[in-house]
């Protein structure tokens, strides 16, 4: 029986478990098996990363070869006869799982990843019921690094698959995590074994998203938030980031890419939050501030020739990116927009604008945010983020932590009726929503800035600025400004050059091209995580290019479904400028919504 999987010219025939299949030359045994419906277990393999072949869980037997081959790392050859479940394979695979378990602190019931652990799944599939090999954990000097405000690194749970190391190097180009020592002492460590908060780590959390076990997890603040909710003297408000609404469903029984905004709001209300509001509101606010800042900078550079003002201007929404530039390019901090991220804008307003409007003592307000991000935990803890007179954001929870709370509360998420965000800071536009995807901030900013300058809509069909969308690591777009309004006459005929980078490894490419003078952009959007916030380090695990694509589609569908698509049309934005902030970059804005950055060293 021959299954024809593809009609490519460069095909070869192989046999997997007795079934002959035709596959494309260069396909790995693992991929070939998956294409033909044969499942080979893996541990160190990840679709986002290069092949390592470390764990050896995926070994298969090839006829005529004494040794087994790692399916992930071995390309198929013509006529290969492969067995994925032979006597030899089964025994070896079981041995390898047993070996991994003997070195692993298999304290599952007390593990944060209990229930979402690939090693646990493997040992459950292979029914490893006995402990024949000697437990090696007591011989080891395992340490737990809890110094980072975002990430907990527990070496006793590590299986040395090096996914985190590859993530940190290949996706992020940060290399905060690396392999140290050899043999039995081999472990994943940092520069000079410093704590995670003392190295170049950007807290992006991609290592957490790619870790198969509980070796890397977020520092969770679930209990603290429950305590605040239970405290009757506190007024607990919550904001939800754009990308959370397209990820949360995955943790709660929905298909990948489901939009669960209304259910999420309902669940948050049932959890007992006093007010449920939207980070999308402050994303719209960011556009007002950042868009105005961009136009001001353009004028200062192009008309006033002010040497103090730097172009290109870079976005400042992604706290992982901020920490990265502070470490790696500290001399370029002037290029960052001074705008706080939407989370921190919201936080500063919660204890000022909101408190005043609701007649609350800001001291009693506990401000919680739900973020797709672990770096936001670090950002909220930055010393400068106290502009309201209090800590602007008290607790940051990831999408995963929110899902845990919803489960703990016994909420049947699927059956919830949709609810709306509370007023004042709960209204948003499609522009705020797309902040969750790479290119979104750029698109939102262009929708508003272009209209501000010309009085017309951006010249793209249905406001969809397609060139800034998509999964390319670095995207470029140019918008020509024609017939501007009188006050922006100096921009007439100017081609506004924009770039978008997501994943810090791509951010590095763009930064290096700026430094070398190869590119002359005006405005650049940087996002630390692949795919933007929807692929953030706080999003549901697993992640893969396919999963991120589905979440992206959901984000843009959410945008298209909004009655308002431009930040400056948001009625609550209009209201806050009328009642409180007066104008973008005004004095109040300057005080509450803008910030400074800190140059950091690489080590």
């Amino acid at each position: 029986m021959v299954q024809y999987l593809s009609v490519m010219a460069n095909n070869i025939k192989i046999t997997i478990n007795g079934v002959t299949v035709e596959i494309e030359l260069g396909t790995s045994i693992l991929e070939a098996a998956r294409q033909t419906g044969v499942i080979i277990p893996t541990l160190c393999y990840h679709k986002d990363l290069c092949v390592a072949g470390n764990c050896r869980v995926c070994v298969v037997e090839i006829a005529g070869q004494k040794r087994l081959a790692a399916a992930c790392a071995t390309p198929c050859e013509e006529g290969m006869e492969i067995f994925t479940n032979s006597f030899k394979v089964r025994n070896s695979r079981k041995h390898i799982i047993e070996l991994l378990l003997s070195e692993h602190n298999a304290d599952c019931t007390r593990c944060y990843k209990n229930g979402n652990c690939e090693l646990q799944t493997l040992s459950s599939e292979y029914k490893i019921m006995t402990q024949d090999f000697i437990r090696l954990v007591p011989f080891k000097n395992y340490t737990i690094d809890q110094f980072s405000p975002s990430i907990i690194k527990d070496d006793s749970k590590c299986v040395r698959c090096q996914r985190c190391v590859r993530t940190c190097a290949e996706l992020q180009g940060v290399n905060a995590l690396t392999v140290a020592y050899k043999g039995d002492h081999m472990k994943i460590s940092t520069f000079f074994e410093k704590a995670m908060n003392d190295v170049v780590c950007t807290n992006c959390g991609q290592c957490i998203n790619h870790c198969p076990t509980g070796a890397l997890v977020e520092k969770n603040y679930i209990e603290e938030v429950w305590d605040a909710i239970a405290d009757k003297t506190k007024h607990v408000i919550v904001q939800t980031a754009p990308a959370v609404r397209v990820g949360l469903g995955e943790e709660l029984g929905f298909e990948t890419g489901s939009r669960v905004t209304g259910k999420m709001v309902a669940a948050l209300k049932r959890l007992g939050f006093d007010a449920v509001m939207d980070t999308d509101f402050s994303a719209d606010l960011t556009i007002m501030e950042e868009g105005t800042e961009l136009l001001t900078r353009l004028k200062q550079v192009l008309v006033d020739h002010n040497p103090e003002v730097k172009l290109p201007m870079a976005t400042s929404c992604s706290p992982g990116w901020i920490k990265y530039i502070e470490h790696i390019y500290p001399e370029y901090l002037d290029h960052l927009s001074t705008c706080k991220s939407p989370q921190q804008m919201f936080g500063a307003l919660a204890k000022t604008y909101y408190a005043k409007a609701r007649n609350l003592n800001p001291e009693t307000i506990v401000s919680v945010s739900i973020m797709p991000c672990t770096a936001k935990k670090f950002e909220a803890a930055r010393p400068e983020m106290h502009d309201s007179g209090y800590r602007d954001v008290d607790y940051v929870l990831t999408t995963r932590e929110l899902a845990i709370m919803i489960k703990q509360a016994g909420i049947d998420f699927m059956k919830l009726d949709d609810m709306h965000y509370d007023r004042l800071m709960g209204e948003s536009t499609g522009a705020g929503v797309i902040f969750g995807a790479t290119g979104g901030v750029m698109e939102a900013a262009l929708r508003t800035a272009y209209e501000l300058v010309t009085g017309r809509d951006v010249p793209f069909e249905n406001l969809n600025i397609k060139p800034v969308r998509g999964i390319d690591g670095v995207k470029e777009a140019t918008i020509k400004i024609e017939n501007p309004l009188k006050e922006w006459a100096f921009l007439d005929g100017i081609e506004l050059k924009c770039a978008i980078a997501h994943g810090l490894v791509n951010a590095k490419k763009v930064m290096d091209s700026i430094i070398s003078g190869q590119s002359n952009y005006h405005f650049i959007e940087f996002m630390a995580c692949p795919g933007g916030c929807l692929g953030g380090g706080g999003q549901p695990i697993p992640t893969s290019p396919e999963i991120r694509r589905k979440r992206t589609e959901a984000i843009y569908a959410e945008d298209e479904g909004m009655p308002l698509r431009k930040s400056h049309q948001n009625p609550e934005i209009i209201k806050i400028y009328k009642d409180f902030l007066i104008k973008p970059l005004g004095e109040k804005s300057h005080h509450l919504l803008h910030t400074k950055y800190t140059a950091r060293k690489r080590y």
Partner: protein
Amino acid sequence: MTTNYQLKRADFIFKNENDWEKILSKNISRPPQELINELISSELKGRGGAGFPTGLKWKLSAEAVDEIKYVICNADEGEPGTFKDREILSKVPFKVLTAMAICGHVIGAKEGYIYLRGEYFFLRPELNKVINEFEYYCREINFDFTIRIFMGSGAYICGEETALFESMEGKRGEPRNKPPFPSSYGYMGKPTVINNVETLAHTYTIFKYGAKRFYDLGVQYSRGSKLFSVSGDTPKPGIYELELGMSLEDFVEEFGDGDTKAVQVGGASGFLVPRKRFNETAIGFQGKLTGISLPTGGSMMLFNSSRSMFNVLDNYLEFFREESCGQCTPCRVGCQQLLNGIKAVKRGEKNAQYLDKLLRLTETMQYTAKCGLGQSVANSFSSIVENFREEMIY
């Protein structure tokens, strides 16, 4: 089962006739294909221990299409009980350099590297002088080939060819997945010939005297001579050049102290042969001369009856546990389990049957480890545990 094969001394490697300039200029004017054919017909196999046909290795790299190629001399001599490469590099370095240059001519490489074991730091100044002299001559005859020394840092695993490349590239010395093999994707991703010091020295012999002279030594499948590093309980430790194919009995007759209990052939990653199997064991590659044939990088360690085989194995396993790079599960955890396991059996914490479980584990390690290190731990473990089981338990 006995053999009438007698121990035959050979004297090629260390015979220095100071004719390298002549050998070099003669051979670099020969067409590469002719040199490859010469090597192939000599049936020279890699002397580092794995025994890959050298001629084929050069041929594959010569066929690879790339502007940049490399020749690397693997002088990361780390196998316990091996000390021959050090002697070659201090006594007849010109032979090695010449062979590297001829290889460069054959495959189309202009750069050669000697990856020198970290502990052989003391060889470096002298070797650099010799390289300078060698390169001077190359320039004189208008032959474009340079040789650099790259110092290792003491990791055993960096003797594994792909880990060696990683180390040279400034990365962590960890073996790569194979395929691709060095002949198409080696140092810096370029086609690379990587040969052991002794292998290169033998090619010098072949290019000097012709393939037949070399082929006539040894036995079928194991042609030529080989340096042996003899150590342990022997009255005459040292380095000896012998024809391949000898029986272990003849070897022990010559080198033993009369009380030889076992011989470890091929260092810690090789096999331990007990006295009762001396006569049926031949030293060579997959030879059919006698029952068993053992390849070796040249390490021959003799143990007499005063030695505890438990201690011997314990020592090897401690070495492997330490020197595993740690990336793949079977090797990293397997070595720890084997070491802790035999100790537990010795202390009575595990019963004797646990040794059988460990033997099955070594089988898994052999089948699934990423590189030769993890795959060959089974060799010494199973040969010691199977032959000296009582010593493991009591």
